[in-house]
C-alpha cells in the first residue's frame, strides 16, 4: 500500500533510450496499467520500479522515499511474471508458505497456516493445497504464482503480462478475478501489457507508452473517448479507429482548419451504415468486405482510397460491392494534427 512517484525517469542503454523523462504518479491502492507495443519501454519502467534496472537519471519514490539505490530485495515489491515462477517439486501449500518461512524471525506455524489459507482462498486454490505444483494445469500454476507474491504482503505489486500464456477463456476469467482481488486487498498494482483489452478492463488508470515516451495517462474512459494523440487513439479499441484526411470529410469543422493539415479519427462503432442517399449520411462508401464476429460484424468499406471499418448488426448485413452512406456521429469525431499527432479540439 504505497504511492509510487516517478520523476524525470530516464533509462539509456548506451544510445538506445528505452525510457525518456517519465513523470508518473500512481496513487496508493490504485491499479494502473503500463500499455504499449513491444519496445515502448514499459518493461524497462517496471524493471526500474522493481530494482532490476537502475535509472540513468531521475528518481523513483515509494511514499516519498527515494528507492532507486535500494536493492530489489529490500523494496517490498511483489512480482508475478509471465512464466509463473513456482517451485514445481513442492506442494501448493509449501509454495505459498515459502515466502513466510524464509523470513527472519520465522513466524509461528499457526500464523503461517492462517496466512496460507487466507491467500489460497483469495486466489482460489484452497482445494488443491496438497497437490504437487508440477502437476497442476497452467491456469492453476498462475494462481499459485499470484498467491506466492501476495502472501508476503508487499506494498506494491508488479505484474508483467502474467496471463499471456493462458488460454483465452481462462484469461477472461482471471481478469475479472484479479480486478476483484485488487479491489478487496487494496494493494497498489502496476500491470504491464501490450494487450489493450487487458489494460482497459482492469486498470483504474492507464499509462500508454510508445518508444519510451509517455503518450497519455488517464482512466480507461479518458483514454478511449478523449485520446490525446493519434497513437493513443489508434492503439486502444478492439476494432481500430478509422483515420481519414479531414479535407475529405464534410463536417463543418468548428474553428476552421487554420491552414494545418488535419486527420479525422472516428471509431467504427460511431459510424452508422445507412442508405446511399439518406439525409443523415455524411459520406458515401462501397462495401468491400464483411468480417462476421458473431455478436457483431466488422464491415470494411472503401472511401476514396481509404479502408474504413464500421460495426454492423448481423441481421442487416450489406452486400459486397453495395454503395452505402455512412452517418458519422459528430460528437464522437476526433481531429489530429498531421504534423504533431496531437488532438485538436
Amino acid at each position: 500500500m504505497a504511492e509510487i512517484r516517478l520523476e524525470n525517469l530516464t533509462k539509456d542503454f548506451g544510445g538506445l533510450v528505452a525510457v525518456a523523462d517519465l513523470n508518473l504518479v500512481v496513487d496508493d491502492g490504485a491499479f494502473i496499467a503500463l500499455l504499449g507495443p513491444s519496445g515502448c519501454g514499459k518493461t524497462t519502467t517496471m524493471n526500474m520500479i522493481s530494482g532490476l534496472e537502475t535509472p540513468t537519471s531521475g528518481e523513483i519514490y515509494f511514499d516519498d522515499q527515494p528507492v532507486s539505490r535500494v536493492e530489489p530485495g529490500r523494496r517490498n515489491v511483489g512480482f508475478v511474471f509471465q512464466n509463473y515462477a513456482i517451485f514445481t517439486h513442492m506442494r501448493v501449500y509449501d509454495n505459498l508458505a515459502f515466502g513466510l518461512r524464509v523470513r527472519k524471525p520465522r513466524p509461528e506455524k499457526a500464523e503461517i497456516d492462517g496466512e496460507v489459507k487466507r491467500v489460497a482462498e483469495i486466489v482460489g486454490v484452497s482445494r488443491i493445497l496438497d497437490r504437487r505444483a508440477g502437476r497442476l494445469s497452467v491456469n492453476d500454476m498462475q494462481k499459485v504464482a499470484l498467491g506466492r507474491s501476495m502472501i508476503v504482503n508487499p506494498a506494491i505489486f508488479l505484474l508483467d503480462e502474467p496471463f499471456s500464456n493462458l488460454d483465452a477463456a481462462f484469461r477472461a476469467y482471471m481478469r475479472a478475478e484479479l480486478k476483484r482481488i485488487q479491489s478487496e486487498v487494496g494493494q497498489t498494482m502496476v500491470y504491464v501489457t501490450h494487450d489493450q483489452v487487458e489494460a482497459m478492463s482492469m486498470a483504474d488508470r492507464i499509462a500508454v507508452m510508445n518508444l519510451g515516451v509517455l503518450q497519455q495517462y488517464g482512466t480507461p474512459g479518458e483514454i478511449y473517448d478523449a485520446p490525446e494523440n493519434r497513437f493513443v487513439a489508434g492503439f486502444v479499441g478492439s476494432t481500430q479507429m478509422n483515420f481519414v484526411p479531414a479535407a475529405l470529410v464534410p463536417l463543418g469543422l468548428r474553428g476552421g482548419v487554420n491552414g494545418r493539415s488535419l486527420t479525422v479519427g472516428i471509431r467504427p462503432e460511431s459510424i452508422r451504415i445507412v442508405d446511399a442517399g439518406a439525409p443523415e449520411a455524411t459520406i458515401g462508401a462501397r462495401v468491400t468486405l464483411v468480417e462476421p464476429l458473431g455478436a457483431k460484424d466488422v464491415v470494411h468499406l472503401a472511401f476514396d482510397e481509404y479502408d474504413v471499418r464500421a460495426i454492423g448488426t448481423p441481421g442487416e448485413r450489406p452486400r459486397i460491392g453495395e454503395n452505402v452512406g455512412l452517418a458519422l456521429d459528430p460528437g464522437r469525431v476526433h481531429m489530429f494534427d498531421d504534423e504533431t499527432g496531437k488532438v485538436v479540439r
Partner: protein
Amino acid sequence: MAAIRLENVTKRFGSIAALDGVSLEVGDGEFFAVLGPPGAGKTTLLRTIVGLERPEGGDVYVDGERVTGVYPGDRDIAIMFQNLALYPDKTVYNNLAFPLRQRKTPKDEIARRVEQTAQTLHIGHLLKRKPAKLSGGERQRVALGRVLVRAPKAFLLDEPLSALDALLRLEMRAELKRLQRDLGRTLVYVTHDQVEAMTMPERVAVLREGVVQQVDTPENVYHRPSNQFVATVVGSPPMNFIQCRVGVRNGVLRLHHDLFDVEVAAKGLSLRQTLSEGTRCLLGVRPEDVHVEPGGSAGVPATVYVTEPLGGETVVDLRLGDHLVKSLAPPTLQLRQDERVGIRLDPRRLHVFTQDGEAVVSAAGEDLFAVAATVPAS
C-alpha cells in the same frame, strides 16, 4: 472434387493419440480454418497432410489421389511453419528461390516468379537481405512468400500471425484474406485465435485433443455449437453456462433455476425426447445476450461482481445465485461493485446442453423459449 480429404486419420505419439479418427474435406479453392486450443492436434494435422508425419491409420487424399505414403516434396503442398523456419544463411531472394531451384525451374522463370511474389507481399526491397536483418513482420512475409512462390495445389499455414503484435496482426489478417481471394487457391489455416477463425475462413473445423468437434461455417459454429467445448471456444467473452433442472409443470416442459424458469414453447416439444424430467442440463447464453437492467426491479435478480470497461463496451461480471455470469453492457452504463441489478436473458439466443456438454438445441433466433423470474427481484 475435394482438394484435400482426410479419411479416418489417426496419429499416435507413444500412447497418446494426437489425431483420433479425423475425417475432413476441404473444397477446391476454399479458405478452411482449423481452430483449437494448444495441444489439440492442429499442427499434427497439418504435418500429416503435408507428409512430415505418417498416420498410423487412415488416409490422406489430394485432388482425389491417395498420397498417404508419398514423400512430402512430391505432394505439391506447401506449409508455412509456426516458427517460420527461414533459411538463415540465405538471402530473401534465395529463400524464395530455393523451392523453385529444387524443382529445376529455369533461371529466368525463377526470377520472374520471385519478383512477382515479392511485389505482392511488399518485400521487393528486401531481396538482398538475410533473415537476421528483418523485422518480425518482414520475416513473416518472406515465409509466406516461400509458400506462395511454388503455386502449389494447397497452402497450409500454421498459426502464421500468432507472434505478431496486435496492430500488425490486424493488417495481415485483412491482407491474407484478400490474397487468398485473389489467388483462388485452397488454404488450410490453423489457429487458436477465435477471432481469426471467425472472420477469415469460409468454413472452420473445431479440434479438441485430436477429435473433430464440429465442421461448419463460422456463423453456425457461433450460433449452433454442437457441444459445450465448441460454444466456449468461439466468442469473447466466452459463453455462460447455468445449471438447470428439467421439470414438467402443467404439461409444459421447463428448465428450473432457483432464480428463474425457462419455459419451452410448443415449437420445442421434440425436446421432450432428449430432456427427461428430473435430469440436470446446462443453459448456455452468450454475454451479449445477457442484458443488465439497473435498479433491480425487473428481471432476474443478480449482483455486480466486477466491471471491466473496454471502451466500446463494458464486461459486467454478475453473481447469479451461485453462478458467475458475464454480460456485455454499453459503455454508458455506470455500475458499482455489489450493486443489485436485474438481468434479462434473450430467449431467442439461448442454448441447451446436456450435463455432459452435448448440444440439445440452440434457439438461434427462433421463439423456442420464454424466460420468467421466479423470485421477484427486490
